[in-house]
């Protein structure tokens, strides 16, 4: 089944992240919490902005606003409803989950061809150029719920799907069917000190995220491409909205 076929019916849940650009001060807490939660290893000193593994990048785009004012744009995988990366993967290592709308990456299937990196218009995927290594003793502080990826595979944000699995297990153990929204919050959302990130099920019409998604100040990056991302951005500045939705952000 292709991604298009998978999305022909609306998913049961449609997990969505809304980023309020008026609040984001570029502190990097989201990127750090993401790296800690998902066991991203420290890289050799020769790694750089193009070769490093970073699931969520915060870009300072001072040039967006004619006044020169900075706008900080955190960019994780955009979790598209029409994800280009799914169609190009020869290994089916990228899968769209129709129950949640989450685009998952399965590293053990990945052969490292990096077609998905080429196909992704948001530059949110990273390739493991080096074997993962930690300073002696630091492996004990890794998150046991996330496996360590090997050299030669691509990886990306998956909305901390291990937290969704934990929430499902908790719900099931309690004999319930619907998970409590408070039980499933990605690490970046939990860590944001200025509360710029909101997360939830956009199919829940009464939820905060569904309301934010309909807000006229909300927009998507590179909206014209028709990839229908489930990461939305908000800004009170029409210039920022217009430019980012049209041009996106270039990595590096």
């Amino acid at each position, binding site marked *: 089944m292709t991604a298009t076929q998978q999305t022909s019916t609306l998913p049961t849940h449609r997990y969505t992240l809304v980023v309020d650009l008026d609040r984001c*001060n570029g*502190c*990097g807490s989201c990127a750090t919490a993401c790296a800690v939660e998902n066991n991203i290893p*420290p890289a050799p000193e020769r*790694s750089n*902005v193009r070769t490093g593994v*970073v699931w969520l990048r915060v870009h*300072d785009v001072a040039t967006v606003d004619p006044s020169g004012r900075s706008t900080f744009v955190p960019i994780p995988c955009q979790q598209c409803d029409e994800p280009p990366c799914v169609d190009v993967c020869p290994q089916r290592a990228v899968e769209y989950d129709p129950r949640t709308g989450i685009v998952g990456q399965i590293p053990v299937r990945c052969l490292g061809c990096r077609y998905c990196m080429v196909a992704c218009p948001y530059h949110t995927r990273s390739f493991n150029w080096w074997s993962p290594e930690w300073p002696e003793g630091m492996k*004990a502080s890794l*998150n046991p719920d996330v496996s360590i990826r090997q050299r030669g595979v691509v990886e990306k944000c998956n909305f901390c799907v291990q937290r969704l699995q934990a929430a499902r297990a908790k719900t099931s153990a309690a004999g319930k069917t619907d998970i409590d929204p408070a039980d499933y919050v990605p690490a970046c959302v939990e860590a944001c000190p200025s509360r710029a990130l909101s997360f939830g099920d956009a199919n829940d019409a009464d939820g905060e995220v569904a309301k934010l998604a309909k807000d006229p100040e909300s927009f998507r990056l590179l909206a014209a491409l028709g990839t229908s991302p489930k990461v939305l951005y908000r800004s009170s500045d029409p210039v920022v909205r217009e430019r980012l939705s049209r041009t996106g952000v270039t990595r590096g």
Partner: protein
Amino acid sequence: MKLEVSRRDLLLAGTGAAAGIALSPVPWKALDDLSIWTQRPPTPTPRPAGPLAFRFTSCTLCPAACGLKARSFGPQPVGFSGVPGHPASDGGLCPLGLTAHHLAKHPLRAVAPERVSGGKRETIDRAAASAALSAAIAAAAKDPKRSLLVVDGRPGRSLSRTFRALAAATNGRYAVPGSPSPALDTLAARFDGPLSLGVDLSKARRVVSFGTPVLTDAGTPGLLPRLRAEGRRKPKGERLEVVHVGATRTKSAGFADRFVPIAPGTEAALALGLAHVLLDEKLADAAFLAARTTGLAGLEALAARFAPPLVEQKTGVPAGDVVALARDLAASRPAVVLGGDPAEPLSAEADAAIAALNLLLGAPSGPLVARRAAPSEPDGDAKLAAVTALDAVPERSVSLLLLDGTVPEGLVPWARLEKLLADGAVVASFSAFRAGLGEKATLLVPGPAPLEEAVELDGPADAPLATFALAPALLAPPKELVLPEELLREAASAAGFELPAPPAGRAAAIVAAKRGQLFDPSTATTTPVSSLADAAALETAFAAGACWVDDPAPAPAGRFALLSDGEAPRLLESALGAPGPEPARVAALPRTALSAAPSSPLLTKLTRETALFPAPSAAKA
């Protein structure tokens, strides 16, 4: 038509097929599968022994003292998040705090004492470290010309009292780095009684920052951007806006509503120019000035010299902009002006001019609030050295420099300390890391890493309410580690100085004062301290990560002097003698770390691999 297949056609088809297959993933996948032995097999993440539990403490890495919620397996934390409702941080946490659990295993971590001898670093045992320290203490005490100097990055702890007792016993000095908020201290010193000031940003409609990175790296993580964004739907005149004044376009400056670039070192001239417009156009808070200040005539005479055209000449800020900014400040009260950065302080004259500006705006009845310090145990009979400023220590007068592990090199650069050292001086550091000032030590006696010991933690000095936590340890220190206090007492005793026993502790003092509330991080509820049975109950709560927060203090009656005695000529000379305008440097610079610990290797990687500088600056590897 007869179809003939020639040998050439077969060759072409075969070559095309081979090329097509080579360009497809198939052969490469086959090659990949065949050469799997060249790759590391998938590694399961080790699961630490012990059940999953959530534990609470406070971050000890910088003065913000944020609440920490640790997700742990047994004794091992594997991740942190903030504590919503926490009195010091309200759920905020910066990248340093999020990676605090990595530091105990940092590659630069030191566990055994080390000595630099003949330019070489060698590991020594506890006895040798104690003997070396003891000899240095004895030598410093006997020398009439040179003395012992202790530099303590976090005064007020039990270890701080031991340091002060040692300094007193050996005729040495005890110094602390500069104040974290000198402009506020300058203003508080103008009051005709003892006063400590905090900033309640939720009460402000305008925040003007002279160089302080208020939107990104200063204070409670994320607080000001959050407050600003919450008010964005209000009419323009009612919403909170931030104006950044400075010579460099820092991250905070770029994110401010307005950035006013000025020539370096001309902050005092601009502040006095704003004062000039406020007084000239009668825009100052007249009621506050009449009721709560003295010396208006002196300030008027001084400010009269700073007409906007002159200010433009000195600072490079157009005269019209000076007038507009002053009018905006007056129309947007409550307003507050903040100045300086602990790592890059302004001149004393600029602090004085900012203090006067705050008084003209009536800030002490608005965003600035009187606060009390957390109760502490009385000094009693113990002989303790007075706290001196580092700048007051004469050059080349120190034969033994004792550096506490909490002194950040970003705040106290080594070059500043090196000038104080006499020839052959011993530099002993209690840092847990061979980094920062710990790297400069000739005798390194490593202390516990962050999260390895319970720490008495006073909250930020400029918060509207005082907080205190006895941040519990989450990790066990290495068995071979020597606690600095233990070794210090042992070495002092061997040198002939018996130091007084540590006092009963802060919990007893807080319970005795019957002041404030106790915040329980597991339930996000508060309990009045007066309802606690005794100090033991408070200590039990602290051991579970609780945080004490003071009650609001009543505003003290009294007046502020707009200028202190003899200050006007100094201000005039400083502001008018300021350098003329030069092209404002517009650059984004990383902030200097206020943490004494190095960054986690993970944070170093993120700094290197993203185009952004993470918050309180992880640029230090």
